[in-house]
């Protein structure tokens, strides 16, 4: 793990990169990093996240700035700009049931090729996917999802990069931290090693590539 400034962190991300971004309606999103990506400007990003938050908040800022070419999310209903860009053909949007999305990301991070889920069987979600029967019940094969970068926000990070999340800001964060080639973390608080008890560390330091300094 390396510590890095927010400017350096954003500079790691090239045009066209795929980004998994933590947060649920902006709660638990690495806001400082998002702001810096918008400031530096990027083209053709792919965003994989639960939602696109709302204009002016979290991932919504990337959408407003026109940096996103494709979104894979479960919900875009609270960001009218995402819907407008989608309907205008400016952004491709792949809508995935939330439970399927998080399991596909988990599979990508846990070395699984995918999972068998009953969700979506017999609906439009099924299109183009393989079905399989197990013990008389039908499932869709939903395949693993990975990204170039995971942008993670934690409540606490220790000097080595062990992470602790607070309350509902946990959401997608610990799962995406497993599923990307490069993991970049912003933390609300950076604390000495040992402050987070072993049982309370949710993401082990060994998974983290870069911890953004608070300077």
């Amino acid at each position, binding site marked *: 793990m390396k510590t890095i400034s927010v400017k350096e962190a954003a500079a790691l991300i090239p045009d066209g990169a795929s980004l998994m971004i933590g947060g*649920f*309606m*902006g*709660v*638990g999103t690495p806001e400082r990093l998002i702001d810096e990506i918008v400031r530096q400007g990027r083209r053709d990003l792919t965003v994989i996240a*639960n*939602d696109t*938050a*709302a204009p002016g*908040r979290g991932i919504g800022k990337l959408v407003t700035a026109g940096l996103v070419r494709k979104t894979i*999310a*479960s*919900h*875009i*209903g*609270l960001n009218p700009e995402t*819907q407008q860009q*989608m*309907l205008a053909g400016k952004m491709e*949007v792949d*809508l995935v*049931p*939330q*439970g*399927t999305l*998080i*399991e596909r990301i*988990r599979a990508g991070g846990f070395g699984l090729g995918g999972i068998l*889920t*009953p*969700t*979506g*069987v*017999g*609906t*439009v*979600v099924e299109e183009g996917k393989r079905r399989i029967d197990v013990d008389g019940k039908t499932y869709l094969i939903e395949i693993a999802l990975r990204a170039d970068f995971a942008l993670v926000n934690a*409540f606490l990070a220790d000097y080595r990069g062990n992470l602790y*999340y*607070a*309350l*509902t*800001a*946990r*959401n*997608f*964060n*610990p*799962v995406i931290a497993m599923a990307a080639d490069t993991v970049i973390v912003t933390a609300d608080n950076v604390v000495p090693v040992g402050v987070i008890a072993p049982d309370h560390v*949710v993401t082990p330091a060994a998974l983290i590539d870069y911890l953004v300094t608070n300077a």
Partner: protein
Amino acid sequence: MEAQTIIAKRIARELRPGMLVNLGIGIPTLVANYVPDGLNVYFQSENGLIGTGPIPEEGMMHPTLTDAGGRPVSALPGACTFDSAMSFGLIRGGHVDMTVLGGLQVDAKGLLANWMIPGKMVPGMGGAMDLVTGAKRVIIAMQHTAKGKPKILEKCSLPLTSVRPVDLIVTEMAVISFPEGRATLLETAPGVSVQQVIDATEARLAIPGTIPDMCL
């Protein structure tokens, strides 16, 4: 009584001690206001919380404690939090005893459409498909009609949420369930006649001999 209040109060009577309950946005959220005194139920918020409490007072909100819409909530003693994989494991794994969701259309067999209107409104399914597929009991809370047109139809014209039928529909006019896969009128709201329900419903309803009033 307002339509929403009738629906929420009636659904609250379906709560049982120890149940894990997921409430969708809109009318379903109101059910939490009518939990019978002394009944311990667990409300799940799919963004990662069991034990959701009321909106905290001014100055007591925390940016990391929110509902699925990103709005501040509180947590009750004994609450617990978890990541989204666990949240949907609870939902898809059948651990959620009851979910209450809004509906755009429900058909005569109980199939639900509630997540998109092609070309008009494409918010995404969020957790709805997993909830309808995985929860032990699915209750739809909705107005009986929209702009005067029935929402309980012979067949849904909108894309389905799941091929798993819902268990109960509660509207401001009636309670409808699906024994043997067929829409059946169980109760009418106070002051609403069976004929009024039939007239406001496109799906053919089975009508048992006795139709009691909703207990609110």
